[in-house]
């Protein structure tokens, strides 16, 4: 799934993956890192916001889609979820699932 997502993202970026380091690995890692400001370093929260480390990919994607569609209750996450693509949800979900 993760690999497939990378290929989808690479397609969006208009870049061929072969023969170069994957720009999308960097893309996913960087956008996921911006979540850490509120959800804690390495996805481990030290405050009231929930941590993201170890969340399953399916749960993460379902939550983000729910925020975006307005079917899941929340405040600030609706604003954030609106800014990312389904492929990015999947890539970030796989990344957070990999964090211990």
């Amino acid at each position, binding site marked *: 799934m993760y690999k497939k997502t990378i290929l989808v993202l690479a*397609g*969006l*970026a*208009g*870049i*061929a993956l072969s*023969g*170069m*380091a994957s*720009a*999308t690995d*960097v*893309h996913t*890692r*960087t*956008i996921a*890192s*911006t979540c*850490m*400001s*509120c*959800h*804690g*370093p390495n996805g481990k*929260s*030290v*405050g*009231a*916001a929930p941590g993201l480390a170890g969340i399953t990919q399916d749960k993460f994607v379902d939550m983000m889609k729910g925020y975006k569609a307005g079917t899941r209750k929340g*405040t*600030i996450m*609706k*604003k*954030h979820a*609106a*800014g*990312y693509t389904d492929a*990015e949800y999947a890539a970030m979900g796989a990344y957070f699932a990999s964090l211990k």
Partner: protein
Amino acid sequence: MTLNRRDFLKISGAGAAAALAGCATTPQAAATASRRAHVVVVGAGFGGATCAKYLRMWDPNVEVTLIEPNDKFVSCPISNWVLGGLRTMDDITKGYDNLSRHGVKMVKDFVVAIDAGKREIKTRGGASITYDRLVLSPGVEVLTDTVKGFKEAEAAGKVVHAWKAGPQTAHLRKQLEAMPDGGTFVMSVPAAPYRCPPGPYERACMVAHYFKQAKPKSKIILLDGNPDVASKKGLFMDAWNTLYPGVIEYRPNNAPLAVDGDKMVVTTEFDDVKADVMNVVPRQRAGEVCELVGARNDSNKAWCTVNLATFESTTVPNVHIIGDSVLSNLPKSGHMATNHAKVCAAAIIELLAGRQPDPIPVVSNTCYSATSDATAGYVANVFRFEAGKGYVTQPDGGATGKGDEYNFSFAESWSQNIWADMLG
């Protein structure tokens, strides 16, 4: 879609100095291949500390030196809470000790010269430090010269801007505590762009909260250099009308022209406003260190224009600028500076390795403002980089219209997590 190398290089652009790993190598990548690349970061605030830490986390082969004159980090976000009595200076003061665990070399010093050709920095302490890539994250320079009499009144302890958290924050809190009940607090908002757009309005809420608790006959006059409340208008107007009715007198289009510390008067184009406590926040520009390399290169020579996908200066190669000093449509917030820092760190690692940086970075802003000791609201937006357009604000972001307890708890949580993310 498959691109040949010539097409790819056309897309990536000369500024990115891109070449495909395994196909070609940039001069910089070749030069650093036999030794570890050295990145110097100047300024250990939200942007600089985050950039230094993430450079090391993402590539332990990169040497990182972080130059900062202060012993400790004092957070601007949450500093208004100190003025309101919700927090102490100790609560917003953090050490840099953990950065060394990540292999960041901390240097307590002040940069006095930069030779961009030789890629060399000189410090006040006499050190010469060379770099492969330089990151400047100095925050803002507050232009106290633009308000007549400010410097004299500031030296006499009669006025502060307290727009850089630290001793001025503590001084302003003491002035508010010493003010008699029934006194007038006069504060000003600079014309945009300035650091932390909602900050002045949150400050008015925090001081009003303190007055409600301790000095209920006191008033606030808010002199705004802008034509209207510049950020989270619904949130703040609701708080002023419902939590603090009659306490805050808001005067738009009223930039201070002069300050008189002896008479305790702030002069605008329209009035002389008598104060018991004065808090004038002058206009700002990119931090002083940017001028050392001529990176204040916008049309007003005030802010720094950068390639927003890498944060490299548009005119000074190998020098990246992040945080409040950057000219862009992104808000000048601490949270945003950490996003600049992460995109910049990722780009530098790719550039040093001779690879193409992410051509479509995405950044986001999250900014909470307290309206009392139990309520807060937020603004949040996502910005996606598009070649030729810069960062495009995505639809369906925006601000809350009313503060609540739920968001107050998340504002507290935000501060705990972002401090841990940058310094932990």
